[in-house]
């Protein structure tokens, strides 16, 4: 058998010069593209830290931005009302959009499935995902402010953010619920469990960490939005724990501060921006940690 084996021709496996050249060119190009993409990110982080940290002080987080902006920079005040306002507005938005969004996803995956209504709902969710955020603000403005003849309120900002979050929560929850193996549902059904129990005791617990991840990412997205709040939540300088009144928020604080002529106030915008980025970054980090504990592939 072995006597007939052909010897390997010399040079048969040698890498040609042109192949080597093309490979090196492609690798360089891809690396360059990566660096170009990273550059703005690095610059943003640099400026945020550089300018933001210098605006931070011990009173930055404990005082409202009510100081006189024409005098010493130390007296202009901090961003307490903006931080609390953002937390309040986003918390209410989450409280509205999470149950509804997860509910819609459960209906789509467990009940609607391939029905015509389900496809229609999916289509509208997709459309909603693509709606610019300012349109949600505009909608609430027209309906709840112009339409009722009332004025800005924190909860109206929450509603605008809830509309923004709804398709994000629904889509991510739908994807996660679809990852729950069909055989788990079938096993539970085969044990004689009614469908709602299969959903509440098997599907949702199995998908829990994935759902939390999706929800946290939606919250992080909403927390950074300015446009839906511009003409819904209003802005006030004082801390306001009542969402029925004007409510400050970090994006709006930044928006108003950067348009001011005083350097110290513009710097406060950087401090607020750094705060916002850290809050959102923390949410993303938690979302990643939760995702790691997922029971789904």
């Amino acid at each position: 058998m072995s006597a007939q084996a052909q010897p390997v021709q010399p040079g048969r496996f040698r890498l040609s010069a042109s192949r080597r050249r093309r490979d090196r060119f492609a690798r360089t190009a891809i690396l360059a593209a990566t660096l170009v993409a990273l550059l703005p990110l690095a610059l943003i982080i640099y400026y945020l830290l550089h300018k933001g940290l210098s605006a931070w002080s011990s009173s930055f987080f404990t005082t409202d931005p009510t100081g006189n902006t024409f005098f010493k920079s130390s007296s202009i005040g901090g961003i307490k009302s903006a931080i609390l306002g953002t937390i309040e507005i986003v918390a209410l938005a989450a409280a509205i959009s999470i149950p509804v969004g997860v509910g819609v996803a459960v209906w789509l995956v467990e009940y609607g499935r391939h029905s015509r209504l389900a496809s229609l709902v999916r289509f509208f969710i997709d459309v909603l995902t693509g709606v610019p955020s300012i349109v949600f603000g505009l909608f609430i403005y027209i309906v709840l402010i112009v339409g009722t003849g009332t004025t800005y309120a924190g909860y109206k900002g929450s509603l605008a953010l809830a509309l923004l979050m709804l398709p994000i929560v629904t889509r991510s929850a739908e994807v996660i619920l679809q990852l729950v193996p069909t055989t788990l549902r079938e096993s539970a059904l085969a044990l004689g469990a009614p469908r709602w129990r299969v959903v509440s005791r098997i599907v949702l617990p199995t998908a829990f960490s994935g759902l939390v991840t999706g929800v946290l990412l939606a919250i992080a997205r909403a927390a950074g939005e300015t446009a839906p709040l511009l003409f819904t939540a209003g802005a006030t300088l004082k801390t306001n724990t009542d969402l029925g009144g004007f409510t400050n928020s970090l994006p709006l604080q930044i928006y108003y501060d950067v348009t001011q002529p005083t350097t110290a106030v513009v710097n406060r915008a950087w401090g607020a921006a750094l705060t916002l980025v850290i809050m959102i970054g923390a949410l993303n980090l938690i979302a990643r940690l939760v995702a790691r504990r997922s029971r789904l592939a």
Partner: protein
Amino acid sequence: MTADGHPSRIADVEPDELADKLEQAPASVRSGSRIAAATHGQPAGANETELSTHKGLTVRLQGLRAFYGSTEAVKGVDLDFNANEVTAIIGPSGCGKSTMVRCINRMHEEVAGARAEGRVLLDETDIYGGGVDVVAVRRAIGMVFQKPNPFPTMSIFENVASGLRLSSPSRGRHAKAALHAKVEQALRSAGLWDEVSDRLSEPGAGLSGGQQQRLCIARSLAVDPDVILMDEPCSALDPIATLKIEELIGRLKARVTIVIVTHNMQQAARVADRTAFVLDGRLVEIGPTLQLFTTPTDSRTEEYVTGKFG
């Protein structure tokens, strides 16, 4: 019977008495009556003794046809599964044997666009008849799937208890001690108790593949089914784990009727009292296993069991 307001399972009733009652009841009441009774659960206290005296029930397929959309997967099958026997269903991939079995506990209709026609009689009740509670049907007819699939969020104990907890309307019905006894009994029946008794609170997903599959069998046994359907239960397991499941099947048939779909003809030969050969959605032949493998009456069966196709 539910007529007197005291739900009781037919399995508790003496066979003659049962026959009498069925004779007396009009047909419309007979159909679905047992299923209706099962929805009320069983009286507390019956749990202890029932499993040991439990007997399987007969399943009869009559003109069963199953569709996925417009595709007909099962094309009119008449087939009896005798009580307390193991019946194997063999046939090439895609012949409809899994679909056929999924019709028996009405899991087939869970697939989008799927439907079934014909009758499936559990003992005397047509489980496709009007007024039948699907949930009660599935409680009476358990199922073990191809891949072991313990519930990932639950411990070993919770997995076995899940059937009782998921299907019983009230939590109070299963007192802790009774539940514990039930779980132990199911795990013992599944031959798993000695391996897991010291770690019942650990996750079920931490067990080996074979142990997980026996856990799934224990899970379905815990609700005292009359029939257990097994859809290629060993196809994801190694030979030793397979052997354990097969031994288990041999022991379990004393108390339940077992229908097992298998790709593995040796397995059918080892575990089944009778074997059915299915081809292209139709029953070709059913007979005592030895006879089907040695002296089949149909030439297609002979070709299949001798490895000429499939």
